């Protein structure tokens, strides 16, 4: 704790009187001029509780000391009491402009000097402690923020892990290559990022797009509840089989509904929307709920285009892959159901990027069901 009084006065007698008045309560350091005072301030400023400063001194006087203290940014940490025989009010005003704490006129009164020094020391001690406390609390807050950030990152990883696990389950069950899931993810991302450029009304921020892209991996999770003989049947499905096949949307959304408490609400909701509604069409002729227009969640609208496109450009045992240009035209012309005109506008703008992505992946995966269920 700061417990030293630095007394600066060129008259020895004045220094001694003050040292005697304050010596019982404080350590005393003496300086006979401004130069010595500044040296002591340099080396001992952590210990000095208060500075008693005379103005009239040879060479470096009291004002020079104040100027230098201001330059070293010490005035807020060390209180300065001017001790002077000066009676001019102008001099006193000038001192207060330097942010001194008090002005004590000679002659020194034993009691008053002690009281004024004690008051100012206590005030600064309190202020310094307060500052220390605040800076400690700021540090703690920062640490807590870091911890929260780390936990948020962990949670985020957990959310994406769950989605990836669900996506992987579908791949195994359906014998679909993981590449279908990967490609749908890629197409979803390209299309989703194009939308906010023209249509900010969908509110697609970078964060939401990330969730949608990630959640797109779950779009066919319901297929794990479809019997093998239907899911893996080569060739066309009967009406009854097709009805069962269509139920992968409702079954999938039920599965997600059952696990919604284990992950983040936003991820759960977006995954549910995609899973249930990625076969809805803009004219209301899709399934399972026959939603139309903007009643279809935007995430599902985006993934349905990505899903259909991938089905078209993929080769299957019973069908050749359509060329990328054919696939593009079929979607634009409504051969695979009606999509939002806004999304189709965005889709046509990113045609080239879709094609580049399609080229990067092998086209040997399966997209049979999607093709059969969606296209004429």
């Amino acid at each position, binding site marked *: 704790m700061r417990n030293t009084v630095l007394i600066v006065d*060129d*008259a*020895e*007698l*004045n220094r*001694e*009187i003050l040292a*005697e008045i304050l010596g019982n309560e404080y350590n005393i350091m003496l300086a006979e001029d401004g130069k010595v005072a500044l040296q002591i301030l340099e080396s001992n400023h952590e210990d000095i509780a208060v500075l008693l400063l*005379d103005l*009239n*001194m*040879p060479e470096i006087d009291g004002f020079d000391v104040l100027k230098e203290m201001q330059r070293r940014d010490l005035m807020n940490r060390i209180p300065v009491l001017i001790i*002077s*025989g000066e009676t001019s009010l102008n001099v006193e005003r000038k001192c207060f402009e330097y942010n001194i704490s008090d002005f004590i006129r*000679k*002659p*020194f*009164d*034993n*009691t008053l000097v002690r009281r004024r020094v004690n008051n100012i020391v206590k005030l600064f001690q309190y202020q310094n402690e307060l500052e220390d406390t605040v800076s400690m609390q700021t540090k703690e807050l920062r640490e807590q923020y870091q911890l929260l950030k780390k936990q948020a990152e962990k949670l985020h990883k957990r959310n994406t892990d769950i989605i990836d696990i669900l996506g992987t389950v579908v791949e195994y069950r359906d014998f679909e290559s993981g590449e279908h899931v990967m490609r749908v993810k890629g197409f979803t991302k390209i299309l989703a990022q194009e939308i906010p450029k023209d249509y900010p009304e969908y509110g697609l921020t970078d964060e939401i797009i990330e969730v949608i892209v990630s959640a797109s991996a779950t779009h066919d999770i319901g297929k794990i509840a479809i019997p093998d003989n239907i899911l893996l049947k080569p060739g066309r499905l009967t009406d009854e089989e097709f009805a069962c096949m269509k139920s992968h949307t409702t079954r999938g959304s039920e599965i997600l509904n059952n696990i919604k408490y284990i992950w983040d609400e936003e991820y759960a909701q977006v995954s549910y929307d995609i899973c249930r509604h990625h076969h809805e069409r803009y004219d209301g002729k899709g399934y399972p709920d026959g939603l139309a227009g903007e009643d279809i969640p935007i995430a599902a609208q985006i993934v349905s285009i990505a899903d259909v496109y991938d089905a078209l450009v993929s080769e299957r045992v019973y069908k050749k892959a359509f060329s990328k240009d054919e696939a593009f035209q079929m979607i634009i012309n409504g051969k695979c159901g009606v999509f939002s005109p806004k999304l189709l506008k965005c889709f046509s703008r990113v045609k080239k990027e879709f094609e580049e992505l399609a080229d990067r992946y092998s086209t040997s995966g399966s997209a049979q069901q999607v093709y059969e269920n969606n296209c004429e």
Partner: protein
Amino acid sequence: MTLRECYDSFGGNYEEVLSRLMDDKRVQRFAFKFLDDTNFETLCECLKNGNYEDAFRAAHTIKGLCLNLGFERLRVSSDELTEALRNGKSDGAEELLEKVRADYIEVITALKEYQEQLPG
């Protein structure tokens, strides 16, 4: 002779200084310290050499010491001289110096007398 009588002889205010410093031994000790102070010599020297800035500072210091020690008469004359020297030398500074000199000698003489008659 008591210290109070000594103070009275050179126009000091013993009551006042005692009330501030709160101890008669302390007053005595500091009063004797004044005998060692060289500011009066500095003052005379500087005035002779035309060094008014340092003369001002020395006068100012003497005034401060007198304030602290309750040397009222010398305090008044040194204060007048200080103001006469504040902005360089002004008329009447010489006369004021002589007044200070007289008051100063009075203080020093009385203090020395008092000091010598103390036992031990």
